[in-house]
């Protein structure tokens, strides 16, 4: 792939990953609002926090644009990138756990009959103040 085209493609992926990250934050905000307004059901996708792992794409892309000649700095940078990726993956799982805990702590109960399992993710429905259908 031509370098210019590669950068353009990665720019699209950068934008998508920022959008994915903001989507995760917005979702958390939405869930908190749903809890505050005592909605009868809340749907959570699991795994959802793993969207955050895409942040590694703009990070890797940005480091391609900067040339570092000092070997020790470059070494440190690569360690930071690897550490960040592992942290983002772990943060995804922690996020899922935290958001689920927030919902169950608010008195919502898991409703398996309304939940759905697709190929790689589960859509869990939590209900409060009504029967599971």
């Amino acid at each position, binding site marked *: 792939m031509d370098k210019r085209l590669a950068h353009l493609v990665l720019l699209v992926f950068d934008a998508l990953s920022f959008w994915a990250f903001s989507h995760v934050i917005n979702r958390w905000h939405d869930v908190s609002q749903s809890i505050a307004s005592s909605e009868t059901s809340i749907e959570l*996708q699991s795994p959802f926090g*793993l969207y955050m792992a895409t942040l590694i*794409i703009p990070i*890797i892309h940005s480091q391609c644009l900067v040339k570092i000649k000092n070997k020790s700095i470059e070494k440190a940078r690569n360690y930071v990138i690897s550490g960040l990726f592992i942290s983002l993956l772990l943060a995804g799982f922690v996020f899922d756990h935290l958001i689920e805990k927030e919902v169950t702590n608010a008195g919502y109960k898991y409703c398996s009959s309304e939940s759905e399992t697709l*190929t790689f993710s589960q859509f869990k429905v939590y209900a409060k103040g009504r029967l599971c259908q």
Partner: protein
Amino acid sequence: MNTTSSEVKSIVNQNAQTLDVLPAEELVEIHRRYTSGTTTNDPTATIKASTSLGLVALDLPKAQRIIRELGLTGRVKVVTHRSKQYVIFKGNPRSRSILTGTRYSASNPKVVDMAIGRRGVNKAIASGARISIFFTVPVNILTHIISDDQTKAEFLSAIATDIAKASLVAAIASVAGSATAAVTTIAAGPIVVVIAAGISATIGLDALDRRFGITETLANELQEAYDDTVGEINRQAAEVNRRLKWQILNGRPVGQGIFY
């Protein structure tokens, strides 16, 4: 007092009450659901969730192999010389155990096997997609066997969408991986991007599927197509059977009005 029928209807609708008559066992079950929050234990959900996590875990050893061979700071450069692509490895070749040279052709089996360079990344993605299809189809079959209420149309549509999703994820990850391989010198960079893009594409496609009901619509279409073809033939055959029985029981010429 004059009240029209529509007014009577609206008054009745406003004061509508629903009375459900339930057997005692069902009432107990509803109470149990309401208090425990869960209805039934779905073993298929656990199987599917474990499979998806297993598939993600399968990609991680590839990144780990590159890091083990080249180190966290391992760098590669892809250069094209006389329309042939080469992968140049930076750093001391003596510290490596598999890639002991400094320059390899991009199609070298060692390089491709380590998922380095565009060709290597694409090979890793293709094998990943193949594995995900090999995993999801049996899981769907198992789900169909275990589940009591899944129809054949739902089963077929689940397989069809799963294969389509796996192919789409492979395509998206391939584009991201190839683009990264073209610009980065970090050896593990493309495979890390492939993993990140692959995970997000998978979750995103599932979310789109759920939002627009793609699998459900496909299942309904399949069911409709089945009803219009095989179902219609079955209904016609049942009708012929019913008429023949009636003719035999009533002493009428058998097959009249049907065959002649």
